[in-house]
């Protein structure tokens, strides 16, 4: 478990990093917190010729709300995101979900941009990004582009980023006032990779019904998925247990959860039903409200 030889480059600025990526685009990986990539390297499952290490790169770790958007620098550590007042205010779902992102030592190193760029099927950050309609900012030499998280994630560990591009920022629209969030997750162990997880953001209507609902799931497919069917079925209705259960069941029946050593597809579906029902009902309660 030693990595094959690679060249280590440590840019000081985004421009320098983009130049390096462009120059070595045929075999390059970006190193952020290293909590996933280092494991792939030592198991020789990733073999880039060049590593562009962003840990000394300036201007990538800001966390701020500007113009109704929460902007998270890609190199903001998960622990910093989890604790930032701006996140608590604009997207409390993310803070709640990152609590599950690994033990403290991992969250101290792991970054929000690294999680998004890695696109692990069990990633809490990816699930929340989908749930909250986040946008991903990608920089390259001479420019940048922005795309919806929904379009950015292509498959397990596969994204729309080109080799010469790097994620510089995650942008999350500030949740509407009164929106309540819930995140539920289950693994084999108390603290584990998610076998199944549910993220919910629910905006109540003045009459007590559901004005808007967003639900995303870990373990419902090969990637985190938005459960559009649940959202559609419950919008404008009241969150009553029977109704929620039926909507969740119907939506999950259309999904194809993976079967692997951790759990069968049937078990994932069964667990997701319970988690989704619990999370939606919890969000419909008055426990957590965005300011």
């Amino acid at each position, binding site marked *: 478990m030693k990595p094959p*030889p690679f060249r280590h480059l440590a840019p000081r600025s985004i421009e320098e990093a983009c130049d390096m990526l462009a120059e070595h685009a045929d075999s390059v990986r970006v190193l952020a917190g290293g909590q996933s990539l280092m494991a792939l390297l030592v*198991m020789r499952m990733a073999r880039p010729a060049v590593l562009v290490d962003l840990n000394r790169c300036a201007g990538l770790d800001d966390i701020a709300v500007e113009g109704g958007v929460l902007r998270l620098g890609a190199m903001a550590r998960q622990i910093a995101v989890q604790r930032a007042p701006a996140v608590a205010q604009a997207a409390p779902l993310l803070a709640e979900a990152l609590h599950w992102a690994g033990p403290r030592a991992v969250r101290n190193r792991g970054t929000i941009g690294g999680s998004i760029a890695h696109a692990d099927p069990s990633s809490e950050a990816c699930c929340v990004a989908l749930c909250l309609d986040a946008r991903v900012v990608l920089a390259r030499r001479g420019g940048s582009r922005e795309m919806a998280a929904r379009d950015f994630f292509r498959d397990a560990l596969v994204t729309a980023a080109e080799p010469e591009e790097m994620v510089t920022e995650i942008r999350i629209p500030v949740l509407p006032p009164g929106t309540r969030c819930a995140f539920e997750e289950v693994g084999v162990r108390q603290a584990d*990779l998610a076998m199944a997880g549910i993220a919910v953001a629910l905006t109540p209507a003045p009459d007590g019904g559901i004005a808007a609902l967003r639900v995303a799931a870990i373990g419902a497919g090969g990637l985190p998925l938005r459960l559009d069917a649940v959202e559609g079925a419950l919008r404008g209705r009241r969150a009553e247990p029977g109704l929620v259960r039926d909507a969740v069941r119907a939506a999950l029946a259309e999904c194809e959860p993976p079967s692997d*050593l951790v*759990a069968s597809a049937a*078990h994932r579906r069964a667990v997701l039903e319970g*988690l989704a029902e619990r999370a939606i009902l919890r969000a419909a309660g008055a426990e957590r409200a965005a300011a």
Partner: protein
Amino acid sequence: MDGPAPAGPFGARLPRKEDPRLLRGEARFLDDIEVPPGTLHAVFLRSPHAHARILGIDASGVRDIPGALVLTAADLPQLPPLRPDLPLPGFAVTERPLLCRDLVRFVGDCVAIVLAEDAYAAEDAAELVAVDYEPLPAIVTLEQALAEGAGSVHREAPDNVLFRNQVTTEGFDAAFAAAPHVFRETFVGSRVATVSLEPRGCLARHDPGLDETVLWSSTQVPHLVRNMLCEVLGLADTAVRVIAPDVGGGFGVKASVYPEEILAIAAARLLGRPVKWAGDRQDDFLSSSHARDMRFGVEMAMDADGVLAAIRIDVLANAGAYGGIPFGSSIEAGGGPRTFPGPYRFRHYAFRTRAVATHTTPSGPYRGVAAPIAFMAFEGMMDRAAAALGLTREEIRRRNLLDTADFPFVNASGIRYDIASHHRTLTKALALSEWEDFVLRRDADPDKIRGIGIACVTEQTGQGSTRYRARGLLRIPGIEAARLKMEPSGRATLAVSQTTQGQGHLTTFAQMAAEHLGIPPAHITVLEGDTAVSPFGSGTFASRSVVAAGGAVITAAEVIAKKMKRIAGHLLEADEADIVLRDGRAEVVGTGLSVTIEEVARTAYAMRPKGVPPGESFGLDTTEYWDQPFSSVSAAVHVAEVSIEKATGRVKVERYSIVHDCGRVVNPMIVDGQVHGAVVQGLGPALMERLVHDEHGQLLTTTLLDYTLPTALDVPDIAMEHIETPALDTKGGVKGMAEGGTIGAIPVLLSAINDALRPHGAWIHAIPVRAEQLLRIIRTQPGTPEG
């Protein structure tokens, strides 16, 4: 604790002497040892196939890596194969090549040693060795191995049975036939890995000038490693030194001698350069022994009152591709029926047991060996019998537990129990766990179902030479030794024939000796783990240390204390019989006359005006051997309470209680820690740990992501009480105790889960119990929640 606090160091809750340096990061594990100049770093090239013919090995590619080289079987033609099992009745004698020449028999079998200037380059080079394999059909499971026409893993064992034994006690058939109730079930263990925090590794150095060969190895058995190096490589034992540095966990997996240790020395001698191998986690999963891929078929015959009449069991153990050294292929298959009778009174016993070869990683000892599965089977049957007969689970056990009047007792598998407190232990455990009040807790949470379980277990510890000879394991001497040397200062060094991997030997043995020498434990330095320093012995495994090595320590302390009393008597002009050693002084009882221990020691070394008594030899230095005549059997009762979440099937261990009797306790803090750790190593296999192979014999769980070990968050607080019934058959009244926590945890957790499932009418008889299985039962067999 039972009784008053101890007056002396024996029984005191002393902080461990070894902890400060471990906690400060000052320990030196294998990978911390500064390597000598010129050291080559090794990677063992392992077979990616479970069963394949080697058609050719092309190592020419490594030329691209400066300084790299490759050794195959062809480069070490003088190396004989290992012969794990001896030609004794019941054993098939098979061979294990150190490096495979023609055939590989498991994913992980060594094919070549790749050496380079550092470990990175060695891995780069290993990728460049091209081995041409012709894959062959693999035998993976017990069923496959025993099926008609299965083929053979070894020519010498055409039916794949490496070890077999069968015993029927006299009168069994009649007793079995006469019993009104017979309960039957098959219990299935999960194949597990030991996962010591530090994987195996070694550093080999040969000094041709001195003709000295030194191996530093992360091992539990330095003397046995030395013996095997001599046996296989034809070296003189005087020219070979094996050192176990700080070792990051053993738990049995490092009690075997492995090919890598022998190959590292062979390569170092051949190349004239030191060779280092620091195994990584994948090496560990693939090549360190696996354990407990076992099944127990049980037929339990009882009379109308729930009293055991006769038991028949059929045991199978998946031994993997080869027997290990020194435990051979019989470790689990032999241990299963031997430990099975437990704390119960029954005399009619029949068993058949077989160790079965497959194309998987060799099995070996792991904390408790077969006992956790044996008790999962026994205690599982007791729960089923209680349910069928309308008895409570505690009552059926009370009717069968050995009582004070039964001791000494020789059980149906021939193991002698000197004394135990099973009934008191059970009563106390029920009280500690608030067993009677569980009914009030059962339905406390509407989102969960809850169950409580009980397990009464025994633990055979401290086996001596007689036991190992009876088991056909002649490579294990079974004896232990201690060299106690008091220096002129009155401080002592105590070299013990053992090595420690976290058991706290440096503290425990000092406490045992201090009691006799009248000096504080802090003045006794325990030395272990180096064949050049430690006297000859077997090693640290099978909960032997406190009994087998402790016997030698106490004997040596007694010998030195006696001599100190003779010298003190001479100095004080008093009868040696009136001298007591305490608080750093030798005093004449009741007189106030005394002399310091230092004065006695200086006299012994001719450094004082007055000499030793006439006829007395100089020095305070002795080496004593100890052979434990009988096993010593500890016992415990575990009670666990679990909840199962209705939405997810997840199990949480809500409460856990143990009452434990391991004779006199030397250091309660160390004993508590040992039991806590052992419980965790039972909780894992019961609820989440399992090694999984695909149908081709490929191991799918080779990282700590796939092989799920419990973390601290999965472990409950453990309430524990000790009963101290002094052992009669051991020095100091002690019994071993390092494995009982694991032995109890697996059966008790299964018992608690089955209790929770009783309203659903399901009995689980295999581990690990997975959330998936529980959720399916809860959803598809709704049953009657009110019971």
